[in-house]
Structure formats: C-alpha cells, structure tokens
C-alpha cells in the first residue's frame, strides 16, 4: 500500500480523485450522456482556456507567495492594444507580440511596485486593477471594436488561436496544455522553480541562501502578465472583437481554480498538475450542473459550495497524510 500513501501525499491527488469522480458522475448522469457529447466537449475545450491560461500563471505566482488581482484589467487592456494595432494596419502577428509585450510590462510594473513598496500584493494589484481598468475605459470609451474583417475566419492567424485540429479538437486546449507543460517543467524541474518555491515558502531562508527573491517575484508577475496578453488575443480572435468587459471576474476565479487545485494561499505549496486540474474543475462543474438541468438561475451557489468543500477536503487529507 506504499504507493497509495505516496500518491495521497502528493498534493494534487485529492483534486485528481474528486475530478475523476466528477467527470464520471457527469458522464453517466447527464441526460443522453450529454457531458461527453462531441459538441459539449468541443465547447468546453475552446472556452475554459481563456481563464485557464491565466490561472496557470496566477498559480505559479501564488506558489511564490503573491497574488495578482489586476489580471482582470491587464487582460482587456492587452486585448485593446491588440485591436488598436490591428486597426492601425499592423499584421495580426505583430499586434499579438505587442500585446504580450504590454502584458509583460504591466506584470513588471506590478512586480516592481509590490517588491519596492513591500506592500502585500493583494493591495498593490488591487490598485493596478482599478487603475488600468479606468485607463482602459477612458481610452476605449467602452465601445466594442470588431476585428472580423481584420482577422478573417479561416485565416492562418485565426486558426492558430481559435481553430480546431482535425475539425474537432479546439486549438485553445492545446495552447493551455502547452503552457501547462512549459510552466510545469519550470516549476518542478528547473532551478528557477526551486527558487519560486523557496521564495514562497520561507522568504528569509531563500534570501539567506542567496536567492534574489525580489527578482523571482517580479519574474512571476511578468509570467502572469504575458499569459494575460496571450489569453486576451486568443479570446479577442474567438469572439471577433474587443470588449471592455473581457476578463471581468477572472482575478478571483483564477485564485479559486488554484486553491481548488491544492495551491496554498500562503505560498510555497502547490503543483502544476494541481493547478491544471483546478482550472478544469470549475468550468466542468459549471457545465455539468447546467447539463443536469439544474436551474441556471443562481447556479453560482453550487459552485461556491463546491469550492469550499474542495478546500476543506484538501486540508483534511493533507493533515491525515502528514
């Protein structure tokens, strides 16, 4: 039974078990097995990465001991940069890189403000969230801006970010998987990952061991910013426009996804498999409940309860296996 214990000690294990249970439950009980219906899986696969990609970065940042509430403003801001540049006649390729660059820059700013002021990032990024949203509203006048003509359906760029592989598999899910693998390698196999964990777990120890914790934190903020830029372009291409309300609510839902995946709010604890499962679990819960024909008025209540149950379960199992 040694391997069972080892498996359970792994932090993502509880999430994994509940996740499998949830998938089986929805697969068997939804009318006409709608949950595993091609259409439903395709819709899930193309929609969940919008938040999922952002949550991957937020999870890494949380392991490092910081939060980023500004994602819900950085994302639409990057989207608007992307769309403006398209309007200016830039090729989608360059507009895309510019959006990533702006994301990185806003992440850098979050990092510098947090590290230099030594304020909790919960506060500093709350500030930048409000600031960038305000700037965005003034700049964009909140007018939606269509880009269907500039990124035509079927063009290479459109297919790269909103297409399907083999006429079914949504490419967004592949992007999500790619980022998860890259960040997973960074976190678990690269030396920088060890610095992230050390910084989040015991900042004084990390500093005493010569790790530049300020640099590590700032880099993590930048990772989040770049992923926001990516998600912004991916979403803008899919919905065919910039919308000032893009990303609203992502800040807390990304944190919820990470927590469901076993990431600690105090830093130093979490894993990439866990974050991935967390990013999948909440959309699946949302989706499965609607497919079960639960009244969609007030469905948030179920999701709230589920989130709390997950966290309680995580900490319970953790105490048991220690």
């Amino acid at each position, binding site marked *: 039974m040694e391997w069972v214990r080892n498996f359970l000690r792994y932090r993502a294990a509880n999430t994994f078990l509940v996740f499998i249970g949830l998938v089986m439950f929805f697969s068997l009980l939804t009318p006409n097995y709608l949950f595993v219906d091609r259409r439903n899986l395709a819709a899930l696969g193309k929609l969940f990465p919008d938040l999922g990609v952002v949550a991957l970065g937020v999870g890494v940042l949380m392991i490092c001991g910081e939060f980023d509430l500004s994602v819900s403003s950085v994302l639409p801001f990057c989207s608007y940069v992307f769309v403006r540049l398209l309007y200016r006649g830039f090729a989608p390729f360059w507009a895309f890189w510019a959006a990533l660059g702006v994301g990185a820059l806003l992440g850098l700013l979050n990092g510098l403000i947090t590290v230099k002021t030594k304020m909790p990032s919960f506060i500093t990024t709350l500030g930048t969230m409000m600031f960038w949203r305000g700037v965005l509203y003034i700049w964009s006048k909140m007018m939606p801006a269509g880009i269907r003509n500039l990124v035509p359906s079927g063009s290479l760029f459109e297919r790269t970010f909103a297409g399907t592989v083999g006429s079914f598999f949504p490419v967004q899910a592949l992007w999500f998987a790619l980022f998860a693998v890259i960040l997973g*390698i960074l976190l678990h*196999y*690269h*030396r*920088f*990952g*060890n*610095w992230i*964990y*050390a910084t989040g*777990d*015991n900042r*004084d*120890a*990390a*500093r*005493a*061991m*010569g*790790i530049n914790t300020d640099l590590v934190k700032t880099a993590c903020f930048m990772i989040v910013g770049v992923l926001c830029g990516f998600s912004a372009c991916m979403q803008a291409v899919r919905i065919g426009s910039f919308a000032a309300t893009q990303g609203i609510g992502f800040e807390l839902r990304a944190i919820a996804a990470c927590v469901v995946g076993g990431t600690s709010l105090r830093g*130093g*604890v979490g894993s990439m498999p866990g974050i991935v499962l967390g990013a999948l679990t909440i959309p699946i819960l949302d989706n499965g409940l609607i497919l079960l024909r639960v009244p969609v008025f007030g469905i948030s209540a179920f999701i709230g309860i589920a989130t709390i149950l997950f966290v309680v379960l995580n900490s319970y199992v953790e105490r048991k296996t*220690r």
Partner: protein
Amino acid sequence: MERQNGEPLVRMVNIHKWFGRVYALRGVDFEVYRGETVGLIGDNGAGKSTLIKILSGYHQADQGEIYFEGQKVRISSPRDARKLGIETVYQEQALAPNLSIARNIFMGREPVRRWGIIDRKVMNEESMKALANLGLRLRSPDLPVVTLSGGERQGVAIARALHFKAKLVILDEPTVALSVKEVEEVLEFVRQLQREGISVIFITHNLYHAYDIAERFVVMARGKKMADVKKKDTSPEELSQLVIKSAFAE
C-alpha cells in the same frame, strides 16, 4: 591570546551599529581562529544576533572593519558572506518547510544540467551523502522538511554548510525549543564540524549547551563585549556569574 593558528580567520574591529535611535553595538571587537569553536553568550538583546547578522551580510555595520583571512572585506549581502565561506544556520529560518530535504540543501545552488534543469540524481545522492557525513540517516531526500524533528532539521541545515565547504559556520540559537535528546543530536553535528576543521560560532543564551563544545567564550551585554575567556581558564559557574553580572552592571 596564546592560541594563534597564525592570523584569525575572521576579525571584526570596532563594530558600531544603530537601529534608528537604538545603539545596538558599541564598538565590538571579535575574532575567530581557524578550527576554533567560540560560544557567543549573553542575555536577549545583548547584541549577539546583530553582530552575527553583520558578519553574515544581513545587516551592515555603521562603523568598523571586517577582515577575513587577513583581507579587509565588505559583506553587503548574504551572498557575499557565502562567497567567503561563511554559512549561517538560523534558528527556524534556514529551511523552507514544504520543500524536500534535497531541495533545501541545494537551495539557491542547485546542481543543473543543460538549460538550468536540476540534476535530481546528483542532488539526491549528494544530499544523502552530506547527511550521512553528519551521521544523520533519513529515509528519503524527497521528504518535506516539515516532517522532520527539530534536531533533524538543524542537521539538514548544518549538512548544507558542510557540503558547501564552509570555513566558518554560525549557529544562531540552534538548540532553542529542542528536546534534551535533540540538543544532544545537534551538539554531535557540531562536533562533526569540529572534526572537519571548520570554525564555529555557537550563539546561545543557555551556556550549558555551549560549554561542552566551545573552546572560548565571548560574553556580550548591552551592545558591548564584556568578557573573552578560554574554557580552560573558567568554569560554567564562573561564566554564568559573568553573564548575570554583566547584564546588571552599569
């Protein structure tokens, strides 16, 4: 000083330190010779930790000089101190509790292959070797440090210093909050350092813990060095009198 293995390994001269309006160190001279174990004792707030944090790069002195192996040095960060070969083991602060033993030992100095990918095999084997050198046998290098006993944790931190060929190991209250058995464990680790010829500064306010292993004692009170005596010239009773007297002396 009779025992002169040549020049001191570390010599701190006339160190002053203010924290705002608090005058924490008032012109302290302090030195450690090669292979020597010094017990640094005194009541809380005597300035022991401040002195040591200047040596390990956490604070900078407002005035005074530090010589290492005869060379005047500036230690402006923990990284500088470690480059010189000064490793510090803080009470509870030296380890990341949720990280594995191996990852703690190699924190900030991970052995890597191409592109900065950690070489786990090397890391795990070297960790177990370093712990075995201290006489510490742990089940697996992958266990998180939080699952270890207090004594074992100190062992991990000391093994780290040993592995990276420290010339001077500073132990800041390593026996606080440990059981009698665990204290004995930690003292055994220190003896291992001594056998390896490493200089040790052992900071404690329980001088009985230090008495067994230290060769010389420096007593501090209110930011000043009050006494500097060799073990053979003193006794535990005399030392504790010294600590108490200097704490109350005006």
